[in-house]
């Protein structure tokens, strides 16, 4: 059986199990989504949006969609993947199944819990009907595939005027109990008026079985709300991810997404911001450090539709060995979106001869009174800077690491959780294979 046939069979079985208490609308959404996926199939390199990233070899695997899991993972085995230095809410999944043992959810003042619960219980019906699958791109086949199988993930609903006092961690672990797993988490995040929440998301494979994650996250940032979202992608070489994140922002909201891509086999991020009001700020930051034959592809979109909004985009990449980077940054400024400030910068350093980067800024500006800029640099390490440090007694390896660290620094400065910043810095010094003897 081909993967598509396999998925069809799995979907039919899943569809049969839609129970009576499930929301009929959601079932319809799933069925429509699967029909769309069947029609479109997986994207190939012929699609403009997938020109530089091929899923071909990945799709040869016979992925299990809903693996039977023995959930025996203990906290001490996975502790290091948690931001355990500080108190947080935690929503943890193992092979796509919720682990109550590792989680810490709440309904006290706000909901930080499971999508499966929100889909099943009548009291969430209004929110689900209002938000579920409202911003996820229906014409996208990969997103449709996720929608068809959407069943589990994080459900976060923060009512208005609420500041969530501690960060929320969303962790997805995959174990070795079943080989070749396809997990499709679905997150729904609603941030009410004047509310504020910080979220850290991580996908982590615990063995070297082949894993493909196709994740969809919908975020609704209501008036004057603030959301800070951090994605840690530092997975094993057997793990690949397609991360689709869609954000809809209402007036005066500030949404920031920081993507740290340090590992995995293939990492594709589709990150899209849609504006529905004035005086909105969207921040997109990314640091990529990869080696061997790893690939990280950041596809972003900021759709400026209303006047007086701003977007700030900064992606930095360091590529070792024969690794590949893709950056496709689309900024649309519609006719009505006067006084838009849109800035985009993508800087890459290629360390080795076989590393490559495809960087494509795409600005479509239909308004005439706007400030938009984009910049793109691809270079190598600055030899003069290296010599400077070496002349002070710092050996080549350490000097290189310091320079690379300095290069990534402005994107690192955007992290607002100090413990997370320390953690990311440590991951970076591990990636650069140095111990600098101080917390940079």
């Amino acid at each position, binding site marked *: 059986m081909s993967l598509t046939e396999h998925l069809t069979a799995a979907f039919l079985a899943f569809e049969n199990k839609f129970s009576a208490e499930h929301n009929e609308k959601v079932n319809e959404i799933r069925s429509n989504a699967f029909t769309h996926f069947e029609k479109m199939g997986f994207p190939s390199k012929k699609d403009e949006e997938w020109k530089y990233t091929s899923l071909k070899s990945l799709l040869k695997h016979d992925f299990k969609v809903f693996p039977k899991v023995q959930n025996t993972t203990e906290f001490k085995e996975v502790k290091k993947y948690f931001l355990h230095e500080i108190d947080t809410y935690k929503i943890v999944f193992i092979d796509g199944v919720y682990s109550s043992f590792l989680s810490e959810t709440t309904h006290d003042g706000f909901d930080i819990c499971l999508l499966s619960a929100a889909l099943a219980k009548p009291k969430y019906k209004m929110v689900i009907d209002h938000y579920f699958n409202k911003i996820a791109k229906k014409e996208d086949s990969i997103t449709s595939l996720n929608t068809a199988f959407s069943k589990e993930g994080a459900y976060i609903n923060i009512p208005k005027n609420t500041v969530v006092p501690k960060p929320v961690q969303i962790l997805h672990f995959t174990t070795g109990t079943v080989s070749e797993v396809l997990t499709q988490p679905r997150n729904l995040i609603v941030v009410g008026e004047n509310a504020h929440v910080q979220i850290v998301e991580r996908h982590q494979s615990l063995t070297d079985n082949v894993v493909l994650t196709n994740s969809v996250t919908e975020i609704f940032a209501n008036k004057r709300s603030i959301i800070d979202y951090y994605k840690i992608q530092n997975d094993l070489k057997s793990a690949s991810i397609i991360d689709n994140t869609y954000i809809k922002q209402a007036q005066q909201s500030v949404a920031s997404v920081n993507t740290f891509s340090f590992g995995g086999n293939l990492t594709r991020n589709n990150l899209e911001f849609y504006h529905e009001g004035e005086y909105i700020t969207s921040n997109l930051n990314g640091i990529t450090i990869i080696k061997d034959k790893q690939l990280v592809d950041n596809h972003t979109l900021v759709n400026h539709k209303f006047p007086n909004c701003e977007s700030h985009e900064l992606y930095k990449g360091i590529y070792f060995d024969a690794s590949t980077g893709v950056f496709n940054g689309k900024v649309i400024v519609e006719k009505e979106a006067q006084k838009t400030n849109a800035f985009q910068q993508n800087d890459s350093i290629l360390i080795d001869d076989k590393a490559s980067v495809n960087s494509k800024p795409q600005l479509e500006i239909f308004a005439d009174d706007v400030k938009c800029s984009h910049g793109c640099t691809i270079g190598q390490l*600055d*030899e*003069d*800077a290296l*010599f*400077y*440090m*070496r*002349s*002070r*007694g*710092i*050996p*080549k390896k*350490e*000097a290189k690491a*310091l*320079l690379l*660290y*300095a290069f990534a*620094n*402005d994107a*690192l*400065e955007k992290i607002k959780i100090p413990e997370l910043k320390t953690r990311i810095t440590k991951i970076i010094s591990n990636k650069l294979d140095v111990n*600098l*003897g*101080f917390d*940079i």
Partner: protein
Amino acid sequence: MLKIKNLHANINDKEILKGIDLDIKAGEVHAIMGPNGSGKSTLASVIAGKEEYEVTKGNVILNGEDLDDMAPDERAHKGIFLSFQYPVEIPGVSVTNFIKTAINETRKANKQEEISAKDLLKKIREKAELLEIDRKFLSRSLNEGFSGGEKKRNEIFQMAMLEPKLAILDETDSGLDIDALKIVANGVNKLKNKDNAIIVITHYQRLLDYIIPDYVHVLHQGKIVKSGGKELALELEEKGYDWLK
């Protein structure tokens, strides 16, 4: 301390240094002057071991040891320090952390223990005072957003912290106003002792009013065309370089 014998060096197959001889003893200050493009900065870079330059003939010997095959960091560990004309900005790494790394890497190479936090702080306080550096300055990112004068002062501060045997000051006076120049020169003079040596590379005589050289050498087209005492600098100031060509 430093012996340079018939040194020839190329960059991209173009010969820049065409036979330089220099003998510098401990406790001495040598000034190297010359017009733009005469090879002054190249000489500094070659002594410090910049890899883009190829030494085609001759040698550089520090305390009896040929530096030929040594990397820049190894030369630094042996006690060579180059103060840059254009110091590099390193965002995200504070002055203190950079110096700490430099000191400890040098100590490690010389099989010494790492400097203790207490000793490091004490030394920083002492040397910062010497160069009239505000303590706040030390927690800023290295050279990032520093004025020209601050960068140069920071170079001499690093020199003070690293205590090199041979310090080469490449155009340290450029970008300094007269007050900053006095502070920097005063710092250098206090760091000078009978066991170390200093090479001052400068285009103008101005700096040499404050750092008095024992010898002055004039470099022209990759060769030392004249050497003399400190009065040679004054003569150059008066007559320019043309009379030497």
